[in-house]
């Protein structure tokens, strides 16, 4: 089980790295074609923006650990473990309720874009935007797991041990 999770995580990380590398290369193609070959390409900008959108939400969904995120943890760190658990439970509930509440309307919005295609590459935009839907599902799933872990602190110790190992 742990092995499978590790493999999935490392695959997700590699996909993120590949997206970033592709963005970088596309940029170079754009600069070279515009200034050396005097050829203005439309698809490069669009591809970069699409990759950037996917990168942000792909990483936030599948790669970033809680500690990778930008957090304001002054108060959280200053309280004891017990209070931290209560904090964690309230925060997790807030995230789950908030994102669940927005899920269906947001899905509706993304689905609405199936009638439109991106200007140059002609990709249906609901595919482009779908990553935000996955992001919501991933965040809700993650925080459900965190909620579970906070309610059963034994699990947390086991996970911390694993993460430190």
């Amino acid at each position, binding site marked *: 089980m742990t092995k499978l999770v590790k493999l999935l995580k490392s695959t997700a*990380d*590699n996909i*993120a*790295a*590949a997206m*970033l*590398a592709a*963005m*970088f290369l596309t*940029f*170079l193609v754009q*600069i070279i074609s515009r*200034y050396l070959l005097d050829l203005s390409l439309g698809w490069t*900008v669009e591809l*970069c*923006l*699409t990759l*950037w*959108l996917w*990168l*942000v*939400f*792909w*990483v*936030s969904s599948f*790669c*970033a650990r*809680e*500690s*990778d*995120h*930008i*957090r*304001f*943890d*002054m*108060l*959280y*760190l*200053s309280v004891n473990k017990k209070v931290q658990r209560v*904090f*964690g439970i*309230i*925060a997790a509930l*807030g*995230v789950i309720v*908030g*994102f669940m*509440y*927005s899920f269906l*309307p*947001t899905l*509706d*919005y*993304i689905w609405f874009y199936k009638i439109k295609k991106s200007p140059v590459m002609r990709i249906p935009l609901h595919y*482009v*935007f779908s990553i*935000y839907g996955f992001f*919501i599902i991933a*965040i809700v799933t993650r925080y459900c797991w965190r909620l579970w872990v906070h309610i059963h602190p034994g699990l947390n110790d086991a996970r911390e041990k694993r993460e430190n190992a």
Partner: protein
Amino acid sequence: MSVEFTVCLLVVFTMAALGAPVAISMIIGAIAYLGLSGQDIALAGEQIIQGVYNSFILLAVPLFIVAANIMNAGSISDRLLQFCVALVGHLRGGLGHVNVLSSLIFSGMSGSAVADAAGIGKVIIGMMTKDGRYTPGYAAALTAASATIGPIIPPSIPMVIFALVSDASIGYLFIAGLVPGLFMGLVLMLLNRYQSARLNVAVEPRTPLRALPMITWRAFPTLMMPVILLYGIYGGVTTPTEAAAVAASYALFLAAVVYRTISIRELIRVFRESAISSASVGLVISAALIFNYIVATEGLPSQIADLLTRWNLTPLEFLLMVNLIYLILGCVLDATTVILVVVPLLIPACRELGVDIVHFGIITMVNLMIGLITPPYGILLFVINGTTGIPIAQIIRQILPFLGVLVLALLIMTAFPDLVLFVPRLFGYPG
């Protein structure tokens, strides 16, 4: 301020205080606002998706982070740091001076304070805290403070956005940032000198004089980076965003071909790490976009602007007032948001009161960069916390004196426009 907006702010601050990521807290606050005010909930997703998908300028962020990470992995920033150590390392508070000096040079390579703090900042914090020379809090605070110089010295992403909304000349804005950037470096060094003497920090041995030419030679290709970037932008070869890609490829060229210090495996690691850190910054920016939308809907900035124009102010009074507003806004909002939302509202007042637009631009930049290190919402503090794990509370405790001298520098630049404008005038600026 409506009840809904008050609730929104409460939700954001409560969630963040409970330890949820800042970006997630802002999205939840926005959803609460939309739900309470009876608007379409999907607006949150819409603003976020469209904001990221449509802002070409944001692409510079991941590319500058890649560039900075390659520079770190490929010993490029090591060589730059060695060069700085050889120059100022033996002075009292030497490593602190190295921190500021390397930030000054790095500013000429990168356009974002976040990339400065996340890139070279991580290395210098490691050097400063080794063997307990400086406390982690002090090292992190000085790094955050010196990273604010990044977008003041060209190239600069926030200046491009400012030029976009104000119609000021990007060329003159860039050049005008040179002296203020150096000035900020100077006041930080003076404070560092004083603090190091007070804390009695150990003095490093002087680098032998005959080693100096070799160290300079080794750092030379790195020192060429600002020259190449400025030529790229001023020679009309690249847009400022593309300059980020040029910076990354030049760094890659140096690390892989010239210095041969980076392997394929290392490179993959660099891209994995850059992907994760640029995405977490991207998430905060995207969450700021929906927040930005709500602030604009509430009409808050326009109420402030109305109030400002009603009073008959001299240019200096106006700028001092603006400083105050920026510093307050900068505590809670991110710099891009302030530039996009607040600056357009102040431009008309600026023209009427006879305030020079380039001077105003630089004052805005310095203000907002100071805003990046003011608690509670100081993105540089979060970034350094994210890359080094030094707790926010420790950084905040040490940041206050640095904030103080930067504000002092800001006031001097506000009172003496010539300090900012004399260089652009040399280049033919008519203002």
